[in-house]
């Protein structure tokens, strides 16, 4: 009985164990089962924001069970397969051919596995959306040597993994997160290898993944379908058409944070 139905003692009531116990029992039940309306709008406020950043009970890469943070170290890539088309899904938008065989495989580059988080406040996990913050550091336009290929822009995007039928665990691009960066070459950098074409540019992206993002994937999945992972992707876009293999692109430290939030979406 979450609501408290308090019966007041009257003037001629005897103060007995039973008469005193009744209101205590009522209050006890109410406190142990506070209803939604027991907390007024904004009741938890900034002091309890941590409560509303949803823990989903997994072990994430840095051991923080609330914020999901993934950081990659420096990686070099061939200027290989180019950007395909706007909003292409799966690995199509991903370029990297990892030159360093000892490094992580491309699919683990900047990826966070989630323990099946359903997005949407009515979907069961009480998660309104996944707030994603991603920063990719573009370190060198061309590593070790003069550029030989066609001029390119570095493209980044955010993808989500959704279980679909009959396809399982397919990755879908959040189209609005596609970003293209043109190089701004650092003219002189004493700390860089003299043959590198250094850019050292940050490519930032912020995104709120909401149920509507599930409705547009192909094949479509139902709102509330669990999201199994979030990852960052890179590719090379050649605005002048065509491309030439041979140049080596280097990325510096990159970071992605995923924050599941209990909230009202306005």
């Amino acid at each position, binding site marked *: 009985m979450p*609501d*408290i139905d*308090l019966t*007041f*003692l*009257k003037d001629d*009531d005897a*103060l007995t164990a039973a008469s005193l116990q009744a209101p205590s029992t*009522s*209050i006890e039940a*109410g406190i142990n089962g*506070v209803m*939604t309306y*027991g*907390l*007024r*709008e*904004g*009741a*938890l*406020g*900034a002091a*309890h*924001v941590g409560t509303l950043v*949803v*823990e989903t009970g997994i072990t994430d890469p840095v051991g923080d069970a609330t914020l999901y943070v993934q950081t990659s170290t420096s990686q070099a890539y061939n200027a290989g397969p180019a950007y395909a088309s706007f*909003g292409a899904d799966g690995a199509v938008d991903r370029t990297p051919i990892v030159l360093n065989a000892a490094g992580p495989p491309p699919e683990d580059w900047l990826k966070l596995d989630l323990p099946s988080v359903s997005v949407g*406040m009515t979907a069961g*996990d*009480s998660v*309104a*959306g996944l*707030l994603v913050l991603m920063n990719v550091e573009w370190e060198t*336009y061309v590593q070790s040597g*003069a*550029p030989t290929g066609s*001029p390119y822009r570095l493209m*980044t995007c955010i993808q989500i993994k959704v279980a679909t039928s009959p396809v399982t665990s397919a990755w879908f691009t959040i*189209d*609005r*997160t*596609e*970003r*293209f*960066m*043109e*190089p*701004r070459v650092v003219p002189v950098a004493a700390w860089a290898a003299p043959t590198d*074409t250094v850019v050292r540019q940050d490519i*930032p992206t*912020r*995104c*709120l993944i909401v149920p509507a993002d599930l409705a547009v994937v192909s094949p479509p999945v139902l709102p509330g379908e669990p999201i199994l992972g979030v990852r960052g992707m890179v590719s090379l876009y050649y*605005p002048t058409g065509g491309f030439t293999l041979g140049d080596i692109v280097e990325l510096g430290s990159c970071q992605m944070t995923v924050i599941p*939030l*209990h*909230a*009202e*979406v*306005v």
Partner: protein
Amino acid sequence: MSWKFGPFTVSTREVADIESINEDFLSVVEEVTGELNEHNFVENAFSAETDRAKLADNVGIRLHHMYRTADPNVAVDDADPVKPHTIPVSTSWRPLDSTYEKLVVTNGGDLWILASFQVKTGAVYGALFALEINGTVMGDTLVGTGDIDNDQLESLDIVASGTVDFGALPSVWLPNAGAMVVEGVVTVSPGSYLIRPVIRNPRLHSNDVDKQEISNQELIIVEMR
């Protein structure tokens, strides 16, 4: 409500008064039925999914959200919502896009504002970006530069004579494509607030008039109450 204590204490040397006992119970009941707040819960009290489901959606956070999906690599069409839109060049602050804004009506609190977008800017005049709230530019959110000496664009380097030097890469004129995030935290009082990212060009150049574009864009406002 903050911590709550009954107003009367039953003493061994006094006659128990029914009115006082009722008051003791009532003071607690009134608060439990609708006036609980952050003081009454331990840290992470609702972290379990089953507990959190009992909370109202807006108990602590409201998310104000808008976005527009537009392919950055197709021609500008200001009338088409899925294509890039022109950003007129201006030495005054102006909106990035006509619909790239959000009206927030709030009871007050902290707003974490994140604007993430894809732009192409002209190479000669530079660009500054910032957040604007009800017409006031938030100076501490300003990013970008108009100082081309410190921010050379390889596609369109400016040499000492002021002419354009098409460098070794790329060999064709390209507007400068860039990913931008403008973000900040602001504490607001109760009221309504029109929030949007804005742009300003420190200088103008006849070669680059209206070659600025905005395409993919997203505005997220986390209202912490």
